């Protein structure tokens, strides 16, 4: 928005200070992200075997990928199903959390409590608490059945199955079956929206009230207000939320490619094939994101700037 202004006059921050501010992060990034990333790329192109005192690498180039796409009976199926799930869950999660964010940002009694209610899944769906909810207690089905759990840094994955919950209500089986399908779906979408809701709320709070005052004076309806002020002002936050949701969904172990790769790493102690699986999947997600998201945000930018 202000790019033209930036070009002249004194700089917002000097280059030297800028380099200094970014330096600690750069050091950490090289050590804990870039180097491990490069090693993992190397794994994908190698055959990794264990020997006494370490690992043995044998460069095989594209063999791992060839095997996955041509010979592995499951990989292409799980890949396609994971990608299609991504394509429909992400818009739903973003839209749902936008609606909930707007609703929760309004002034009403008990707002703080309501916000807390929607944030709770974020806490519960993390790490060990989720593990406990998912573990089979007493050899019975757990109170709430959840599927795969997650340990990655930025996820809220985990898969809820409401059927055990409904079993407690003693309803006819046909009703339970139908209900549990939809309830399971709502559970999952909602439980993955906690962070997104918070991001939208903090985005909404940065919109100046004066804009709404002006639109009120100009006689805009609530509907126009939303499309002309709220939505454009949330553009950056929407991009952030979308990327965040893609990340969260992609790395969530509730999707098949990830859970297969994970079980291969922990079960068979293999590193070459799972990294190849994840890298190829990652490449597909990147391409799809590029095709779908980039033009959308491009056109947004043109329209509103």
């Amino acid at each position: 928005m202000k790019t033209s202004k930036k070009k002249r006059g004194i700089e917002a921050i000097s280059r030297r200070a800028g380099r200094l501010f970014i330096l600690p992060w750069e050091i950490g990034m090289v050590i804990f992200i870039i180097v491990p990333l490069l090693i993992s790329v190397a794994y994908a192109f190698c055959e990794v075997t264990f020997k006494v005192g370490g690992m043995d690498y044998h460069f095989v180039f594209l063999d791992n990928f060839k095997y996955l796409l041509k010979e592995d009976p499951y990989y292409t199926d799980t890949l396609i199903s994971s990608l299609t799930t991504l394509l429909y869950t992400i818009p739903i999660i973003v839209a749902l959390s936008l609606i909930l964010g707007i609703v929760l940002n309004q002034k009403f009694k008990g707002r703080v409590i309501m916000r807390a209610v929607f944030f709770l899944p974020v806490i519960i769906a993390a790490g060990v608490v989720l593990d406990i909810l998912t573990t089979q207690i007493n050899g019975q089905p757990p109170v709430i059945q959840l599927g795969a759990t997650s340990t990655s840094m930025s996820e809220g994955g985990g898969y809820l199955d409401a059927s055990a919950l409904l079993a407690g209500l003693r309803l006819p089986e046909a009703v339970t079956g139908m209900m549990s399908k939809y309830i399971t779906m709502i559970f999952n979408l909602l439980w993955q929206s906690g962070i997104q809701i918070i991001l939208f709320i903090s985005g909404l709070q940065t919109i100046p009230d004066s804009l709404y005052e002006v639109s009120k004076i100009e006689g805009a309806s609530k509907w126009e207000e939303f499309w002309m002020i709220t939505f454009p002002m949330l553009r950056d936050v929407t991009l952030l939320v979308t990327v965040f949701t893609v990340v969260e969904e992609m790395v969530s172990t509730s999707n098949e490619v990830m859970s297969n790769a994970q079980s291969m790493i922990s079960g068979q102690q293999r590193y070459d094939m799972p990294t190849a699986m994840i890298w190829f999947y990652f490449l597909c997600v990147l391409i799809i994101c590029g095709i779908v998201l980039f033009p959308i945000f491009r056109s947004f930018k043109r329209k509103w700037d």
Partner: protein
Amino acid sequence: MKNKKAYRKYTRSLIGNIFYFAFLIIFGAFAILPLVIQIITSFKPLDELLIFPPRFYVVRPTFENYKVLPTLLSNLKIPLSRYVFNSLFVSATATVLHIFVASGAAYTISKSKIKYRNIVFAFVQFALLFNAYTLAIPRYLIYSNLKLIDTYLVYILPYIPSTLGVFLMKQFMDTGIPDALLEAAQIDGAGQFRVFFRIALPLVKPAWLTLALFAFRDMWTVTGSGTIFTESMKTLPEITSTIASGGLARSGSAMAMSVIMMIPPIIVYLISQSSVKETMSTSGIK
């Protein structure tokens, strides 16, 4: 529900209001139900835990599950408070450091004119898409080369440069901090660090409070699986899973422990969200 301010007044019809709150309550119920079950289960005596299908209420509530927690751990020879300390220390340190490091990086990407900043930001977005599993093994090699294994640093250091915080802060800084304000401050003679700490950071307070919340949540559940071997260095989640793996008799205590585990993130949430309100609603120039 009466609104106090004249503008942004959400005047709806009665039906509109009913719809609104029905919507909130239904979704709210979905969000909170598992938590309610968790709390109820933690108060169930053993015989009630065994009933199938599980009940939504407890007939004879008991604190027994909470009371036995310290004794459950006594065979490990390390008091529960040690694990609590470990978790709190690791989470707090990593959260604070992550906020400063990520804000600094985001500030440079957003506001300076260093040439490579666009490349850096592209990389930030790219690196966001990585799962801890892909990086777990290479990271282990790095920990062991840096002699970090079995120290607190193994929990803290890898989290500090995580890219989500940089991405989040950058997005908020783009719109939240006007360049003109930074320039004005410099003309008035403020140094670069002063501008950063006194002007830039306060302007995006909602952003870093949100980031604090996320970071704390991530760090609170962190376990040092495979990299921490000393028992007294382990964190609360690890000990919770130890209790949970105790089987039949421990299921109530596992629930009790998981209820306790949820308290600190809820406190951090309440603090961060209540102070968000106090900060700016305008972008600082007026």
